């Protein structure tokens, strides 16, 4: 059987000159490089230019507002003038409290890291307990809900009374600030482990240790890291206030000391550093979270 031939001939009318094909110039290696680098630069520019413009605008407004005679705060130009030594050399150390900003920040970071590390360990452990056991939740959760609303600094006098020393008190304040979001988020994460994963564990007869390592921790990791991220931010918030009260080397006391010496420019420089370090801490935890929880997004 043969199918009737289908008319496939199409008539193409060529208009003179309409279909002229222009030969593209062969791309040179420089052009190829340019075509590869340009989008990268453009992407970078779209990220960096807007904040720079905003920053410049803010500095300009600040300069204009504070340049009048009798203004209570120094303009940026004067801040740079007054605190040039502080900005240019963060590493000097003349003994006592007369150190560069790096050493103050370093001392504060050490306290935060210690308090935060204790909070992370205890927070994840307590959160796991609350998430796993209904009775632990019923017993502990109401108490935690009350305790977590106590402002961090309110703990300081009590911890000073208990430890009779500034250093452990500051670390305790950091701990008590960071621990609640870690506890609560861990508990929520563990409570939210899908029943399917629990069933897999039951069919395989995983023992509690295997269950914790193979299923519970990876499944709850995104929640745990949310808690850890909130915790690090709060710790950095609390350390400055705590150090203002306990004294010694540390960025908090540096700021308080500068205020007592009426070095307003130094305060502004220190605040800039505090902000940048806080931002970097947040990024750091986010980076670790991204590396660890890779692939745990439900699919």
């Amino acid at each position, binding site marked *: 059987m043969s199918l009737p031939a289908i008319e496939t001939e199409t008539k193409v009318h060529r208009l003179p000159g309409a279909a002229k094909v222009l030969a593209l110039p062969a791309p040179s290696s420089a052009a190829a490089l340019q075509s590869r680098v340009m989008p990268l630069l453009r992407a970078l520019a779209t990220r960096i230019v807007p904040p720079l413009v905003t920053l410049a605008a803010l500095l300009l407004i600040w300069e204009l507002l504070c340049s009048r005679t009798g203004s209570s705060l120094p303009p940026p130009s004067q801040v740079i003038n007054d605190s040039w030594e502080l900005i240019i050399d963060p590493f000097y150390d003349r003994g006592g409290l007369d150190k560069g900003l790096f050493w103050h920040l370093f001392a504060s970071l050490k306290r935060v890291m210690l308090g935060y590390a204790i909070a992370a360990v205890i927070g994840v452990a307590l959160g796991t307990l609350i998430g796993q056991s209904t009775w632990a939740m019923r017993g502990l959760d109401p108490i935690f809900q009350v305790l977590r609303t106590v402002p961090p600094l309110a703990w300081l006098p009590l911890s000073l009374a208990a430890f009779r020393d500034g250093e452990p008190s500051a670390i305790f304040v950091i701990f008590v600030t960071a621990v609640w979001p870690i506890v609560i988020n861990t508990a929520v994460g563990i409570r939210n482990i*899908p029943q*399917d*994963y629990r*069933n*897999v564990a*039951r*069919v*395989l*007869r*995983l023992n509690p240790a*295997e269950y914790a390592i*193979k*299923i519970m921790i*990876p*499944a709850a*990791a995104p929640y745990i890291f949310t808690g850890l991220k909130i915790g690090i931010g709060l710790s950095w918030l609390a350390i400055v206030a705590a150090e203002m009260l306990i004294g010694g080397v540390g960025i908090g006391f540096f700021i308080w000391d500068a205020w007592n010496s009426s070095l307003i420019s130094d305060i502004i420089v220190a605040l800039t550093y505090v902000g940048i370090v806080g931002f970097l801490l947040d990024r750091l935890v986010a980076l670790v979270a991204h590396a660890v*929880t890779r*692939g*745990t*997004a*439900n*699919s």
Partner: protein
Amino acid sequence: MAKPYLSLESVGKSFSRGAASTEVLKEIDLKVERGEFISIIGHSGCGKSTLLNIVAGLTDATTGVVLLEDKEVNDPGPDRAVVFQNHSLLPWLTVYENVSLAVDKVSRKTRSKAERHAWTMHNLDLVQMAHAKDKRPSEISGGMKQRVGIARALAMEPKVLLLDEPFGALDALTRAHLQDSVMQIHATLGNTVMMITHDVDEAVLLSDRIVMMTNGPSARIGEILDVPLARPRKRLELVSDAAYIRCRQAVLKFLYERHRFVEAA
């Protein structure tokens, strides 16, 4: 007469909330021979999944008992591996690790490390997924995930393989493909299989016997149909096969004439 391999004896299940209690399953009696492929079919809400969970040990029966090789089933275990409806692969593990988790747990004492690796790869080969062993579940298709779920269950060398609507979430073509794979694996390994389904063609194509459930609450076994089709079965040849059509009609009649799904008021 030989003792049945898997035996359900007057299994019943009721859920109670406060004073109110709902009976889901009532007086389920079923004997399954070794190597048999049993399908359980019924309208949604008739408690077929509950029945499978009772056999798996994930849910306790309120009355009655499940015996596997004359031993009572009380808790879940790898001798009754489950292929879950939504694959339930662990998303943070690769395909290989999802299967080797089961292999390592079940045969840590009986196999060396190299043997366990070989066994994991063997089971991935069985479901034709060895090529994707380093992918994560999020990187493979739904049908592939279900294949890995089957490989994980097979790797436990279960006495009974429990399939909980394993192909329900897949498109028709992928489903047919996987059904063929399951038939082939069943022919090769001779597993005892219990499958939950709501697909009439799937039940007739795969099963030796089809257990038809009445509607809940208090669902019972309405009828058990023998499927007298020779294996290996070929999907295309069966379409016009008289016995196939008869079985299909019997199931359809049961589901749509005698036990029509009545929406709960």
